[in-house]
């Protein structure tokens, strides 16, 4: 049988003005955070477990990991946000390693979600992810968080997406989101890669650009020396390239994601073509100060919401409809049970995360016999180092410890990465972390000395 098709002119698509995220009206009608969170729970940063259901190798040595929450609930997030995931890189009994990955899927398809991980040369975690994450594996997640996301409502919805290499991930989420929504939009993506085969999602991007008149995608090779056939542009990002691809960049909101050097030159070129710096949104995962502050705000906001929800539930005495629905999921999943007091959650699945090590019992010697260094009204006893360090209230613990020669690994030093995590055997600290530590870890006596001050004398396992 022969099927013949005739090409006929397709009339223009009629669309409502601008873009509006599906949750926007609910969100706007409930101004208090708890109301919004109840309407769209779970919305704000929180901990949950997710199971890998699919892994998809992508061009550019990237791997997409499709996940679903093990409680069966959808994951609400904003397009462009990321998750902080604990990977049991050193085995189930060792401390997992936290890494942040942008969600590459669209929040308009919330029942599963995906991250896309590039295998980095010498990258301990990314290598491990590529080799070990398989369908069925359960991972511990924190999030979603991040200020780099599409607005909930945008009457203009005119965007320029600048992607370099693995930086395409959050922008892919944005493009998928826009494609899945009605509304007038105008998206141009300029996607830089090192070599012709390195453009992840390129088939899907070409498909989206061919079926959705709102989306245009341009590719450029950063490296001019590449041989072989290549139909896209060649050359690193320049102001001229931006101007050629989007002569109206000046009137667009720009979302850019890529390595820090790329983002630096992008900022420069964007200002040359007249883009106002308030119209530029960037994501680099370099832990820029702005990102960290945003992260801290969101974590604080999450705490506020949790309190409000708890208060609202106390008042109501009846489960909220949404909560009830989630209870159904929990029963069905049979993997987690909500604590009766409605405040803490206890996960029963112990196959990924090691049971939290209890506060160390190995006490080498009596702190009273340690040498004491430093000045201050309080005493910190470092058991493994065998040293007492004096500290004043309000003084940062990590700094004081380092000055005394105590060896504590520390990376971001802003409470985000969790690399300085140690166990506190006694005493109280005042901690202002930014998501680098989980509630269960804190319950188990851990804390981040980089963002903590001493409130009493301390005994520490370090």
């Amino acid at each position, binding site marked *: 049988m022969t099927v013949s098709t005739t090409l006929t002119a397709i009339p223009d698509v009629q669309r409502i003005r601008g873009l509006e995220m599906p949750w926007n009206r609910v969100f706007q009608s409930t101004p208090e955070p708890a109301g919004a969170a109840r309407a769209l729970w779970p919305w704000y940063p929180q901990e949950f477990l997710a199971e890998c259901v699919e892994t998809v190798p992508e061009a550019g040595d990237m791997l997409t990991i499709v996940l679903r929450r093990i409680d069966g609930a959808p994951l609400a997030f904003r397009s462009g946000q990321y998750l902080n995931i604990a990977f049991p890189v050193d085995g189930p009994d060792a401390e997992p390693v936290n890494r942040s990955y942008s969600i590459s899927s669209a929040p308009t398809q919330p029942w599963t979600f995906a991250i896309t991980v590039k295998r980095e040369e010498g990258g301990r975690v990314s290598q491990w992810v590529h080799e070990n994450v398989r369908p069925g594996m359960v991972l511990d997640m924190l999030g979603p968080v991040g200020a780099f996301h599409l607005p909930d409502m945008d009457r203009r919805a*005119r965007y320029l997406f600048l992607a370099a290499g693995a930086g395409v991930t959050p922008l892919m989420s944005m493009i998928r989101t826009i494609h899945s929504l009605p509304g007038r939009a105008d998206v141009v993506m300029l996607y830089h890669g090192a070599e012709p085969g390195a453009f992840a999602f390129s088939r899907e991007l070409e498909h989206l650009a061919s079926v959705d008149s709102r989306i245009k995608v341009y590719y450029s090779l950063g490296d001019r020396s590449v041989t072989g056939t290549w139909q896209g542009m060649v050359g690193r990002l320049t102001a001229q390239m931006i101007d050629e691809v989007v002569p*109206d960049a*000046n*009137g667009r909101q720009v979302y850019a994601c890529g390595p820090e050097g790329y983002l630096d030159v992008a900022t420069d070129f964007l200002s040359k073509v007249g883009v*106002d710096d308030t119209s530029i949104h960037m994501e680099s995962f370099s832990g820029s100060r702005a990102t960290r502050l945003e992260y801290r705000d969101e974590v604080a906001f999450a705490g506020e919401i949790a309190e409000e929800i708890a208060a609202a539930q106390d008042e109501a005495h009846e489960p909220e409809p949404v909560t009830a629905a989630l209870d159904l999921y929990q029963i069905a999943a049979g993997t987690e049970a909500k604590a009766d007091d409605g405040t803490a959650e206890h996960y029963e699945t112990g196959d990924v995360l090691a049971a939290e090590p209890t506060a160390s019992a190995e006490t080498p010697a009596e702190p009273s016999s340690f040498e004491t260094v430093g000045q201050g009204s309080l005493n910190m006893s470092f058991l493994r180092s065998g040293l007492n360090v004096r500290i004043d209230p309000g003084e940062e613990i990590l700094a004081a410890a380092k000055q005394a020669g105590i060896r504590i690994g520390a990376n971001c030093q802003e409470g985000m990465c969790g690399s300085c995590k140690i166990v506190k055997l006694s005493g109280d600290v005042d901690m202002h972390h930014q998501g680098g530590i989980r509630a269960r870890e804190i319950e188990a006596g851990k804390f981040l000395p980089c963002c903590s001050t001493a409130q009493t004398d301390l005994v520490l396992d370090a």
Partner: protein
Amino acid sequence: MAQAVKTKTSSRGKVSPARSEDQFAAVRTLFENRRAGYSLDAPFYTDPEVFAADMKGIFGQHWLFAASLAEIPEPGDYVTIDYGPYSLIILRTDEGVNALHNVCRHRGARVLTEPAGTTGNLVCGYHSWTYDAEGSLIHASSPGEINFDKACFSLKRAHSRVVAGLVFVCLAAEPPADFDEVSKIFEPYVAPHEIANAKVAFQQELIEEGNWKLVMENNRECYHCDGHPELACSLFPTWGLTEELVPPHLEDAWQRNVTAETALQERCNRYGLPYEVVEELDTRIAGIRISREPLDGAGESFSATGRRLSKKLLGDLRDFRLGRCSMHLQPNCWFHLLSDHVITFAAFPINEHQTLVRTTWLVADDAVEGVDYDLESLTYTWKQTNVQDKNFVEMCQQGAASPAYEPGPYMKSEYQVEAFINWYTQRMQEHLG
């Protein structure tokens, strides 16, 4: 006829219905004796009789700018405006805009006394005569009243038209027909800025101690722009010059202007925005000048650097670098339309020596003060410029009141002033017959 004496008393409402034929003839003679290319004789600026004639011949006969839809965004919203002795209610209705004379049909009281507000029916504060949005009298009860036909006492209506979000009114029984053609000229320039989807960020009212014509004349030339240091940041210092006239010290600026103009025209072509100069200031009844021109610096807005003053583009505009679309309509308004905001200017004559100038800054309705724009920065340039212009107008008014005043010549760069005066003279002569 009255002597050219400036008085402090208002002459509002003094359009004498029983003006003598002598006075009428005297005014007509003034027009006949007008010397082309020269400023007007003193009585045009100082004489209550001429002012009364202006109100009838210009403001009573032509299409006038009243307000923008942004000032009356919802049905029931109104503004009250005065043109000399006339007072109008500009009322937003479910269907559009109605212009009603603000004169109660009972004993003539002002029906609405606030400058702006929201109302259902229109209730006169004196005896509660109540009119609906169309002006029909719907309530006028009084004990013992019988055979009172309310239908005979509707509020008088003026003609009103909304073009690209701008509300125009005409007090004449038969409005001039060429406004239709002029609407078609300016609508494509103005409509993309979507004034109906804008909001009032700020409104300024200045009472200038000057005749309304001096207000309009001053606005029609930039010969005096040395007196506008804030505005000068945005306007090219070569504004109004032609290539042959550029002095050596301005050659760089001229080149900058040429480059900016070419780039602006490319952008306009790309976005389908008209930019050509249309100049019919005195060759038609609804005199107009409109064009889109580049601004200096970043070319976006009236700021010292030329950068945007509001972060939200108006309407569906795609680019912030759209310079300024400037429109001047005879007899009482001018406009600057930019990508990020619009400024409307309207002159409302009060008497022969006072004019209310209302300046309204409009931004996109989703622009948030303090987030997307800073009100002080948004309004700075034109607040300064308006006060400077007020001083210039008042200097001229004082001069016109002096026995030593005599008309002086307009310079080449003031040809638009001459065009305005020529338009005015023609229109008045036609009116006076």
